[in-house]
């Protein structure tokens, strides 16, 4: 087990180095050059020169690269042009909201998707199976922001069941020790605040989770169909085990293996998808902040977001690889 982790970590190193070189090149390619990108648009030539000097842009390129690496490792991306605050502080403020949203979306996709996919496989060829397959196809082709619009229009605007925007109701008193509002409510014993946060999460999470949901339904259905035809399931049947035991231990245990990869891949997509969802719901996370930065050409912020999400994506996939090895003994051994 330890060897598997070590090997995966080693494999990640060249990717991280390559990625950092690309990032470095990307920052230098940003409009106006790296110095201009880090100062206000109306800065004078002398100010730009001062920044160039302070950034060491007159030094050899590999020293600049190392200096850049040092910054990235410290998550130092300069000052946001929109808020005049350090990008790092803005990110730290907003990340919990986006992580809470992405995790809720994934939970929604898993809790609904796995049972639906399993059910479709068990009823292979039935009308319900066809319905699930058709709807998951549409689920994959619905743009995140359009789904967000539809949900907002129907459930927030027309029916008024759920809030249209934001993370919490200003009238609900709450403290935020962690920044994860649902968790905060539970920790401070303020269940009303948790419930308020959940209500604000439902629509954005469903919008963001629709594509992973559709993918999970299709994937679960396909793998369960495969696994049900395996010889070892027939052996389990021949042993006279109960239906529940066969589906939970013998079928799902095997069908879950490919699902782990999907969840890892989708979490990365969810984090970048927050840019679109949060914009529609004015959800105060990194996503909506970066969407604003894109309109305002706030390059330090964009840069910070890209770097952080890319690093998170690599870490998540590393964890997934390790989880994979834990679930599948054949990988563990090799």
């Amino acid at each position: 087990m330890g060897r598997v982790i070590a090997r995966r970590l080693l494999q990640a190193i060249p990717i991280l180095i390559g990625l950092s070189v690309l990032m470095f090149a990307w920052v230098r390619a940003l409009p106006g050059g790296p110095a201009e990108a880090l100062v206000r648009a109306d800065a004078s030539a002398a100010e730009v020169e001062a920044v160039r000097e302070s950034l060491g842009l007159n030094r050899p390129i590999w020293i600049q690269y190392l200096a850049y690496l040092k910054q990235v490792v410290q998550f130092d991306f300069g000052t946001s042009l929109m808020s005049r605050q350090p990008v790092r502080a803005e990110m730290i403020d907003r990340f919990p909201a986006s992580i809470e949203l992405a995790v809720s979306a994934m939970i929604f996709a898993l809790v609904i998707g796995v049972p639906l996919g399993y059910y479709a496989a068990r009823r292979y060829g039935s009308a319900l199976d066809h319905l699930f397959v058709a709807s998951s196809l549409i689920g994959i082709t619905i743009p995140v922001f359009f789904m967000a619009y539809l949900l907002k229009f129907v459930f927030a605007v027309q029916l008024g069941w759920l809030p249209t925007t934001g993370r919490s109701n200003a009238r609900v008193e709450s403290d935020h020790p962690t920044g994860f509002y649902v968790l905060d409510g539970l920790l401070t014993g303020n269940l009303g605040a948790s419930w308020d946060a959940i209500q604000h999460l439902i629509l954005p999470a469903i919008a963001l989770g629709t594509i992973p949901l559709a993918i999970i339904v299709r994937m679960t259905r396909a793998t369960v169909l495969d696994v049900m035809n395996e010889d070892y399931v027939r052996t389990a049947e021949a042993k006279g085990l109960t239906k529940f035991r066969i589906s939970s231990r013998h079928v799902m245990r095997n069908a879950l293996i490919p699902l782990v990869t999907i969840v890892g891949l989708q979490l990365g997509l969810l984090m970048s998808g927050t840019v679109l969802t949060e914009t529609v719901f004015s959800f105060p996370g990194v996503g909506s902040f970066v969407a604003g930065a894109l309109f305002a050409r706030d390059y330090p912020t964009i840069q910070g977001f890209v770097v952080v999400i890319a690093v998170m994506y690599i870490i998540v996939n590393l964890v997934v690889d390790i989880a994979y090895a834990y679930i599948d003994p054949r990988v563990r051994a090799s």
Partner: protein
Amino acid sequence: MALLEIRDLKVVFTRRDKAPVHAVDGLNLDVDRGQTVGLVGESGCGKSVTSLAILGLLPTRGVEVSGTITFDGEDLLTMSDTRRREVRGRDIAMIFQDPMTSLNPVLRVGVQLTETLRRHRGMSTGEARVEAQRLLEQVGIPAARQRLGEFPHQLSGGMRQRVLIAIALACSPKMLIADEPTTALDVTVQAQILDLLRTHVADSATALVMITHDMGVVAGICDEVSVMYAGRRIEAARCYPLFEDPRHWYTKGLLASAPTLERPRADRLSPIPGSAQDRIPWAQGCAFAPRCPAVTADCLAGPPPMVSVDDTHQHRCVNPAQPHSGPAPADKELMSP
């Protein structure tokens, strides 16, 4: 009354837009307590389907099953799913052909063995573990205790088949069905596995149904043999008379196509011409007629009845081979199907 009585069993696979396939077509078969019965035939003759029908493991969609399968006084075909799951694994156990794929790759050997014990013998986890170790030792697996904690991919093919046998024997079933249990194994391992099965059947009161296409396996282990063709039994006898004195031309062909040590090596093996798909429906006559070297007009006059040679030997041939009549006439032209 026999332990297992199959009467007029029919299994039909129906497919959209295509003609239905009669996999088992009016099969009768008895197995007594403690008896070892061989079920022999080419692939596609319906022997595996029969075993799946006995255990109720056939798919529900696209399959029609009729007739009766009485096991220990109960009809397996009409009993409830819950009841069938109680009988399966406890009273009837099965060993499948391919040990490489028949064990769950992500569950430890111990789990796969103890789950049967806990389900059918009501053992606690601890008791089941002790018993599981005993069972593994019984089927000749060294370091049994350690093996319980291993995954199937850590075991060789022969070891896995031993594990599957241990699982099948876990509840001392009244009947064990072995579907080609040695086909996927190395020749040396084959002999060990057969030996293991033979010892166990001899030591217990377990009846064994050995499904195989290998006459050598039959000769080594079976009391009685039933030969199947096109979903029906075409000849049944005790082991020795069948080898000495086959009456049905198909049985004769099957025996002649297998190499033996007694025969001079210069003799050519005589394979049965054609394939199992060149057959006619039983309703029109003998299904083997298109491939039979001794076909006559009578063969196509309707379904041939079961004829008794003596108390233990029956066959379904209207123009049976005579005792020791020599090889079939080879120049006879084959009928087209």
